[in-house]
């Protein structure tokens, strides 16, 4: 118990003294997971919407794949991304293993199916007649899709939160493809693992608390956007 109090004290000490290393690690976490989430939004929403609106053979199979992907284990993603990015691997020419870029890639792979699955469900949940009505009012197909996406704003923002929450708290893939390099690819989660194995439990707890605070504030902002206009 004493240890937890010590950790909480340490967390606020590190925050209020603006500890340079901790700030760097926190900012990097935000940068990497934020970028990964944005990429996953781009891919997830466009593919998710397409699959939701399209009719094609094997559609159920594709949907089941996406839904399974929502639970993709980060370590497995980390392992495959590592193998692909090895110097002598198929994508070795990129030379991005053990860089923040590799971490963004791995986290985007983790977050994309989450966003995609939630998008799919959200768009499909819209009344079918809405589509016909929009088209009947003379909208082009692209305009129709855009209106549908806007209609599904609430669940889509929930998707953003789920995707971001999934990658900011993820450690398995980050440590594998990033390498936990000091001042370069060390993020809150990998630093927590390292400090735990170093026996610095107070710092580990402090980092955990900072991670929670960060996640809370991001979600607060997103919730604010989500709840701004109450649905009619």
């Amino acid at each position, binding site marked *: 118990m004493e240890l937890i109090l010590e950790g909480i004290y340490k967390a606020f000490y590190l925050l209020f003294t603006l500890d340079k290393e901790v700030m760097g690690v926190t900012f990097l976490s935000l940068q990497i997971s934020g970028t990964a989430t944005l990429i996953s939004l781009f891919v997830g929403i466009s593919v998710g919407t397409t699959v939701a609106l399209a009719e094609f053979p094997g559609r159920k199979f594709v949907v089941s794949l996406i839904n399974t992907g929502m639970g993709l284990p980060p370590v497995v993603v980390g392992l495959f991304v590592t193998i692909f990015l090895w*110097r002598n691997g198929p994508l070795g020419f990129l*030379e991005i293993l053990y860089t923040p*870029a590799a971490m963004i890639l791995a986290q985007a792979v983790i977050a994309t199916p989450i966003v995609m699955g939630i998008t799919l469900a959200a768009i499909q949940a819209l009344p079918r007649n809405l589509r016909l009505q929009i088209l009947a009012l003379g909208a082009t197909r692209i305009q129709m899709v855009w209106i549908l996406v806007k209609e599904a704003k609430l669940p889509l923002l929930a998707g953003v939160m789920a995707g971001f929450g999934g990658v900011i708290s993820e450690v398995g893939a980050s440590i594998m493809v990033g390498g936990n*390099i*000091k001042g370069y690819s060390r993020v809150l989660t990998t630093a927590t693992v390292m400090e735990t194995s170093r*026996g610095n*439990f107070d710092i580990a707890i402090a980092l955990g608390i900072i991670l929670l605070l960060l996640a809370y504030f991001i979600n607060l902002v997103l919730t604010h956007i989500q709840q701004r206009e109450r649905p009619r």
Partner: protein
Amino acid sequence: MRTRRFRKMFFFGMLALFAATLMIGNSVQAQQKNVILATTTSTQDSGLLDVLIPMFEKKTGYFVKTIAVGSGQAMAMGQKGEADVLLVHSPAAEKKFVAEGYGVNRRIIMHNDFIVVGPGEDPAKIKGTKSTLDSFKKIAASGALFLSRADKSGTHSKEMGIWKAAGMNPEGQKWYQQTGLGMGQTLNVTSEKKGYTLADRGTYLALKKNLALNILAEGDAILLNVYHVIEVNPAKFPKVNVAGGKAFADFMVSKEVQDIVKTFGVEKYGSPLFFPDAGKKEEDLGK
């Protein structure tokens, strides 16, 4: 109109983002400036590398990517040409690694020692036993719990070596459990379960304050823990950064580093964590 503008903004925002992502990747991609150091966790967890790496980077301009894994995994990375230089402590496996042509120029850096730790009650009564082999035999005979790293690390291969020398194979025994975790976590598990384990002194000292474990056997010649640097052989993998790997290895045996190793940890733990050995022969250690 508003919709279209927003969509345009979104698109260009995305584009900028991709560009930024690529730049993060490329900014440090100045070819052959990166040195990948695959090393054992103890060198990182003890904090030694946090002191040495910035010195090396400042001195040479290389950027070191330290990947702290077990010695076994570090050598596996070297075998695939995915690392440039190794800092490891698993002599038998290292010799094999060099003999098979994966590494060159294996040089001794430093040593410390392994210790056998266990609960204060010492159910197997090993305290005071001079020979480590006898201690291990006593643990086995008493059926007291023994925790093994089982992760092909340097510590694990040392432990397997001791069991072999004692003429035993503990695998599958009820009193023998495999954690598959790093040293720090294995010590925590051992402490919670009141078992015995083999640990490197540095990690034990660093974690001591949170552990209910005592040193029960130490000082035996078989418990010597020697660290070497090995440069990865570029003959098999042309992408290996030869110059960078060599520069790091040379740096580790330099007098400057050896002097730091000599006093590292004294302030925090009251005794040094490692003893510098550059230029010595492995056979002469511990005499």
